[in-house]
């Protein structure tokens, strides 16, 4: 999983959300990206982006986990990755 956030002031100019592993090949989750774009990034928005990512991702079940569980991981880890990027990265002004 990878997220990139470009900030413009306190809001998001551009965002990229990519996941691998849980899906057949690495994919961008454009609904999550669209949701973030132009908005002021707070915890609630990060959570909503996680929801959108989980909704969009075509998750496959395998012996490592059920599809429902992997969707949960996408939901949580997209939000957590956004939080980490926003707090620790240099996106924020």
């Amino acid at each position, binding site marked *: 999983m990878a997220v990139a956030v470009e900030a413009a002031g306190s809001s998001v100019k551009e965002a990229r959300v990519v996941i691998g592993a849980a899906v057949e090949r690495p994919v961008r989750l454009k609904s999550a990206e669209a949701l973030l774009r132009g908005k002021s990034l707070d915890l609630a928005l990060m959570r909503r982006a996680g929801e959108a990512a989980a909704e969009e991702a075509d998750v496959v079940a395998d012996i490592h*986990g059920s599809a429902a569980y992997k969707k949960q*991981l996408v939901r*949580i880890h997209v939000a957590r990755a956004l939080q980490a990027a926003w707090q620790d990265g240099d996106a924020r002004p």
Partner: protein
Amino acid sequence: MTVIAKSGQVGRSLPRVEGRAKVTGRAEYIHNLRLPGMLHAKIFRSPIAHGRIRSIDTAAAKAFPGIHAVFTSDEIRRVIPNPYYGPAFHDQPILAIDKVRHIGEPMAVVLAEDSHVAEEAARLIVAQFDELPAVMDEVEAVTSKTIVHDVLKPAGTFPDLKHLEGRKGTNVALDFQLRRGDAKKAFVEAAHVFEHTFRTQQVTHTPLEPMVSVAEADEGRLTIHTASQSPSFVRIEIARLLGWPENRVRVKTAYLGGGFGAKLYIKLEALVAALALLARRPVKVSLGMDEQFFTITKHPSTFRIKSAVDQQGRITARECEVWWNGGAYADIGPRVTQKSGFTAAGPYDIDNVHIDSYALYTNRPPAGALRGFGIPQLVWAYESHTDLIARALKIDPLEFRRKNILREGRPQSTGTAMKDAAIELVLERIAARLDWQKPFDRGAGALKRGRGLAVGFKASIAPTTSVAIVNLYADGSCGLYCSTVDMGQGSDTIMAQIAAEVLNLPAETVKVVHPDTDVTPYDMATLGSRSTYHMGHAVRLAAEDARAKIEALAAELGLPRGSNVPLAELFRKKYGMQAGNIVGTGSFVPSYASPDHATGLTPNATPFWMVGGTGAEVEVDTETGQVRVQRLINVADLGNPINPKIVETQLSGGAIMQLGFTLMEKMEFRDGQLLNPSLADYKIPGMRDLPVRIENEAVAAVQHSGPYGAKGVGESATFGVSPAIANAIDDAVGVRLMELPMTADAVFAALERGKKR
């Protein structure tokens, strides 16, 4: 009878004698063995779980360039007419006959000078079947119409299996029972009754050196080089299959790249023996990692446990029903059923106990011994159950255990009085290390923390024999001949220390001669944490015998008692030159009384008890179900350690292995097919999965009947890991898992169910 160590060789943390050879890549393994003219054999395996064999078409494989021969059971029976083997039942054919009973069962073998050519040709074999329904679940197997074996064929070596001879129409390979007191009455009178059912999954040993055997036949003799934990058993069983005397079969081992119970009894040895006789050339069978999953596994189990508790929180009765999923061939499963079964009520002082323990045949790959011999499955259930009772009664789990713990001198379920079993001390040391009485940081946000503890115990397998020879050469140097197999547990070092202790030599100067049945004497096997105790005694006795002979030689030469003339000089005085040997022998078999068939009771259930417990602190991510073990505390009673450093690595190694079975490992089946027979898909613990902190402790204890107060330690740290972690998860987030493994997926699902309630 404790003999106190005086020479300082016992109790030393001597580095392993083979350490340098291993880290420099010079240690000898069977995998590296190549013999002139040797052929490689590759196995064609059953693609289905259960079926009658209609045909095996080997024509394309035989026509493949570079193929020496292709054999099925038809050829095997030319050299071994009745090719069924096994330690408890003679139920396993060398290659499938008429029927296949599990996925991956060997059906045909391709021989070629090049192993890759053999592998390629084996893929061209086609088998046709009349498929039969498969029974995979141990509880269903009891009543299933699908019968795995038409008739039961006990090997005859174990008296408690004799009553099963010729039994038909059943999958029950052993029904062990224990009856003590009046459980029925106690349940009627109980203030509280608790009942739970726990399950464990099928896992496997994954030694990083897969099974490998080489056989060469010459002039009516057979030599088998094999990565085996039981060379003496291999010789006896191969001689039986061939109808030969034992002295025509020679079995040699080398260092093993891990065993854990996977390389016991017969695995590939009967097959390579038959192939070498058929091909008239040396033959090697070397399994891939994937093939180990089809060869031997750990029993999946279902355990229904029910307890009666009085007003004061005392357990007054316990009823245990355990079903062991032995897979398609019994291997040593019936022994697991009985030897572990009689401890199913746990290390508690309970007057009324009712145990039924069943070995079941199913259509899974066979199950046998795996580091704990069934005990980790039992402790998982009874220590989870113990915490559930304590929580329901609102008694602190430690206090509840203290109220009920089986103390020294009190009778265990079999009626055998506990002796040298520091159960209480192990429990108290875990509690002390956990600072149980002090407040505990419960975490914050999505990360919740909890802690748990668990204690288990195990009887040593009995009765079993070990024999050792100490040979003192003309210059006074020492060779030690014993058939204990060093598979990484450090037995060469331990045995050298014991011989050196008696003979007052530096342990590193003792040469340990590796198992070779033409050279080294009988040993039952390297299993069940028995070597330090049994072989340790045999080595001690052999060394004492040698010492007595040195003294007799000195006396014969007219020297005063205690004159302490070096042995080399004694030999020169006697023989006039550097010549001669002193050979000391020792053999050891502990006392034991077989349990009564109807009641399971006996006054002497075991030569010694192993006690092991675990304390765990975990952090649970409530949003993902991921469990991080922050602290894993492994405490055991292993008597007086012969080598404290090796004890420490046995404790941490056993605990980490069980951690994999607790949190991640599982053989996944769908429609009889195994989905993950590889280390890519079957995950074992890696460095990142290890607990943040591991602590090991050997409690201050003495096994009075053991050599220098010692006993075994190879399995003890496995006992408590699973329930301690389950108890810690419950403590952290209030959910209870009843089935292993406790994957993040399973923990998260339990959290979701908890929210809905």
